[in-house]
Structure formats: structure tokens, C-alpha cells
């Protein structure tokens, strides 16, 4: 798991302190709503039909038990005892009060979390295969790349005012659980015939009112070229994307209207310039991130009890067949906990449920959880 370094901590704390002052100025009337709105949106705070809503990022869907406990605490202390886990690996609080938001952001920062770029026309929370780092079918763990993208896209000045929101997803497995073809940019970790690691880059997918399947922009992008290539894509979109109509502003429309060939040519043209601007620091960082996402210290234990229960207990067998997925360590399994009970609101979880999941992960899963659709 990635732990914040001093820079991450200082950056996050600065944003909390800034927003605390901005909220104070809004409450005392120094800032109008028109002035405040872009500031609150940069910090994930919406004013919806009935109340404020705070969207908190769960980067690449990975949570520690201590972070889940903190999300539960926030639900109890500032909200109505529950939160809503979203399709794109966020949690939303639906009833926070404006004056409490700075304290909530501080409580999140205390466990290395934030709500930065969870709304607004910027690069949103980077999502990944929820089985990343654990799945048996994985070619490579996508989380180091996802963390690299998180750091690259956070507060990137060139991409802070895009024509529309921009969503990136990455998977390291051939079974596309990250739904990469329904994202503005989808990345699939692949290897070429020579065995070199790289990415298939997909662009222009999306859901919403105009669902579109993404198109392949580059079948194989060498690993070292990722950031300069993505910057090139963003630059082409930033120039070519429509700003006259918000419903035509997503890159899926840009690709559809201009054609993938034209987009590809423009991206490749920019890429020549962008690649020269990268000095290799991104690859050094990626190497460090790979170390941070090393697997936990797996333990070995007898499987007799499991095998007996599977053979003799139909209810347990049914649970296993439905909820377990193959792990890359064959003495382990991935257990999916559904929070979509019939008759209840899908993906809402009470603070009690959050704490229970955190505790189960502490006992059985090296204190790690994943959030997904």
C-alpha cells in the first residue's frame, strides 16, 4: 500500500487549511456563492436538491481498515450514520453541513484521504480493477500506475479547467473489471511480442446520456511513454473539445466528431514534443511506487476446514460459488461483500457495516479492502 510522503501530507494539509478559510469567508459573506462554487467543487462539495453532498476519493478503490474506520466515524459524527459507495470508487456523504466540511477534510487528511478533484471539469479520481494486486488473472498490478496518474493529475495546472470532467481507468488483467472502454481514457496493461510491458490506450468511451464504447488510440504504448502520451491526449482534447454545449463537451464526442484517425495523428504530433520534455523522473517514481505496492506477507494455513465445509455445507458452498474469486496466491481467495441488498438502496453502507468490514479485513485480509461497482 502507498503511504503519503512529506510532500503528499503537506499538499493535502495546505488544501484543507485553504478550504477552511474559504468556507469561513463564504459563511461571513465575504465570498458570494458564484465566487465560492468553483472553490467548493474543487474540494468535492456539491449543493444538491435537498442538502450538501461531499464526494471523497478512494484512489484505485484501495482502503486500509483504519481508513474505513475513519469513514465510519465521519458518517456518525457529521452525517446520518451512513455513506454511499459509488461506481467509480468514491464515497459520498449526503447530509454534511457546510461549517463541518473543513473538519471532515481534516479527518480525511489524518488518514491520507481527500476529496480533491472529485468534481469539476478536471481529471477525476483514477479508478482501477478492484481485484488489483490480488487477482489470479492479473498480468501486472495496475495500482502503481494508478498512483502515478493520481500524483500527475492532482492540481495539474494545464488540466484544471477542461471543457468537461475527465475520467481515467486502468486494469492489469484481461478480464476488464475496470470497464476501461467506458472511460474517457482506458488503460490496459499488456505485453508486446518481445515481452515488454506497456499499455493499450483506449479513448472516447463513456456512459451517461450518450453511451459510447472507447476506441483504441494506441495498441501498444511502451511503459516509459505513458505520461507524455497522456499529456498529449489531454492537450489535443483541451484544444479540440467543444465548449459551446456541455452535452457535447466530453472527449467521446470529440473523438466521434473528428474521427479516431485525426485524433491519433494530432496526439502523435504532440507526443514528439511532450516526450522530449520528460526527463525520466516519472519512471523513477513509478519504480518506487511498485515497491510500495508489494504484496503483503502472505501466510500459509491448512485448508482442511474450508474443504470439508465446502463439501458438507450447501449454504457455505453457495456463498463460496457466488462470492469468491480466484486469488493469485492459491491459498487465498478474494471475497466480495455485496452492499446491494434487495429492497435497500444499492451501495449505501451504515457506519456499523463499514466498521464490520474494516474489522473483517483486519482479521483476514492484511487490513486491506477494495471498493467497486
Amino acid at each position, binding site marked *: 500500500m502507498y503511504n503519503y510522503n512529506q510532500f503528499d501530507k503537506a499538499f493535502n494539509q495546505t488544501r484543507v487549511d485553504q478550504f477552511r478559510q474559504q468556507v469561513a469567508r463564504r459563511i*461571513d459573506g465575504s465570498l458570494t*456563492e458564484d465566487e465560492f462554487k468553483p472553490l467548493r467543487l474543487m474540494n468535492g462539495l456539491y*449543493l444538491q436538491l*435537498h*442538502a*450538501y453532498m461531499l464526494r471523497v476519493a478512494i484512489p484505485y478503490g484501495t482502503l486500509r481498515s483504519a481508513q474505513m474506520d475513519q469513514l465510519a466515524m465521519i458518517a456518525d459524527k457529521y452525517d*446520518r450514520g451512513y455513506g454511499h459507495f459509488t461506481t467509480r470508487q468514491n464515497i459520498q456523504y*449526503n447530509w454534511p*453541513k*457546510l461549517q463541518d466540511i473543513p473538519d471532515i477534510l481534516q479527518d480525511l487528511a489524518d488518514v491520507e484521504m481527500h476529496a480533491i478533484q472529485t468534481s469539476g471539469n478536471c481529471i477525476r479520481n483514477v479508478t482501477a480493477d478492484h481485484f488489483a494486486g490480488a487477482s489470479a488473472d492479473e498480468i501486472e498490478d495496475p495500482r502503481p500506475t494508478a498512483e502515478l496518474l493520481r500524483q500527475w493529475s492532482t492540481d495539474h495546472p494545464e488540466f484544471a479547467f477542461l471543457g468537461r470532467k475527465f475520467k481515467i481507468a486502468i486494469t492489469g488483467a484481461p478480464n476488464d473489471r475496470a470497464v476501461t472502454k467506458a472511460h474517457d481514457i482506458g488503460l490496459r496493461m499488456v505485453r508486446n511480442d518481445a515481452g515488454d510491458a506497456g499499455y493499450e490506450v483506449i479513448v472516447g468511451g463513456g456512459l451517461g446520456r450518450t453511451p459510447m464504447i472507447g476506441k483504441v488510440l494506441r495498441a501498444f504504448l511502451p511503459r516509459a511513454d505513458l505520461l507524455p502520451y497522456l499529456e498529449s491526449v489531454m492537450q489535443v482534447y483541451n484544444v479540440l473539445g467543444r465548449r459551446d454545449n456541455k452535452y457535447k463537451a466530453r472527449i467521446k464526442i470529440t473523438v466521434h466528431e473528428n474521427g479516431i484517425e485525426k485524433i491519433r495523428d494530432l496526439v502523435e504530433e504532440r507526443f514528439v514534443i511532450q516526450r522530449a520534455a520528460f526527463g525520466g523522473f516519472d519512471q523513477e517514481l513509478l519504480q518506487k511506487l511498485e515497491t510500495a505496492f508489494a504484496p503483503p506477507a502472505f501466510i500459509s494455513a491448512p485448508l482442511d476446514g474450508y474443504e470439508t465445509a465446502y463439501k458438507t455445507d450447501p449454504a457455505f458452498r453457495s456463498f463460496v460459488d457466488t462470492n469468491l474469486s480466484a486469488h493469485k496466491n492459491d491459498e487465498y481467495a478474494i471475497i466480495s461483500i455485496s452492499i446491494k441488498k434487495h429492497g435497500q438502496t444499492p451501495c449505501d453502507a451504515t457506519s456499523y457495516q463499514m466498521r464490520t468490514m474494516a474489522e473483517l479485513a483486519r482479521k483476514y485480509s492484511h487490513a486491506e479492502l477494495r471498493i467497486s461497482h
Partner: protein
Amino acid sequence: MARAFTPKVLTANRLLEGDVVYLGADGEWVLYHSDAVLFTDEELANTALAKAAAQPDFLVGPYLANAETQNGHPAPTHFREEFRTRGPSNYAHGKQESIDV
């Protein structure tokens, strides 16, 4: 030709809580649509709107919303405004907890 003025209530969200509020008959901001004052005079409605817009430290986004009289109280005429009178529709955890709507 300008459209004829239709009856309206004045509504906004409260700055601190985000609650939907309405201007009441006595000039206070109230939580429930049925307690709102129904403007039938355009000039009075616009004056009240301007006054509300001058309270940015208390209100967010005031506007006039169409309404009609039902059972002696103002009632919304648009589904969006009807949603705003209650709360989320999935289960009772908004205003509908305390009112029978």
C-alpha cells in the same frame, strides 16, 4: 408578448445546512412548501426575490417557482419542485420523516 405572471413561491437553499426553504407569510424562511407565501403579484414577487438575493450569507440561489393553491395551501406545479418539498425518494430520511406528504 410577455407571458402572464402565474402564482409563485420564493425558494432557496439555506447556506449552512443546504435545506430547501421558502419565504413564509410573515417574512420568515420556512421549511415546508405548504407554509410558503403564494405571490400573485409580479412586482411583489420580484421585490421579495431581490431582497432574498441580498442575503448571500444566509441563502443560496433564491428563485421564484411556479405554484398553485391546493386545499388552501400553496402546492408545486412542477415535479422538480415537488421533489424539493420532501427529500430523497428511496426511503424516508428527509423532510418526509416529519410530515405526511
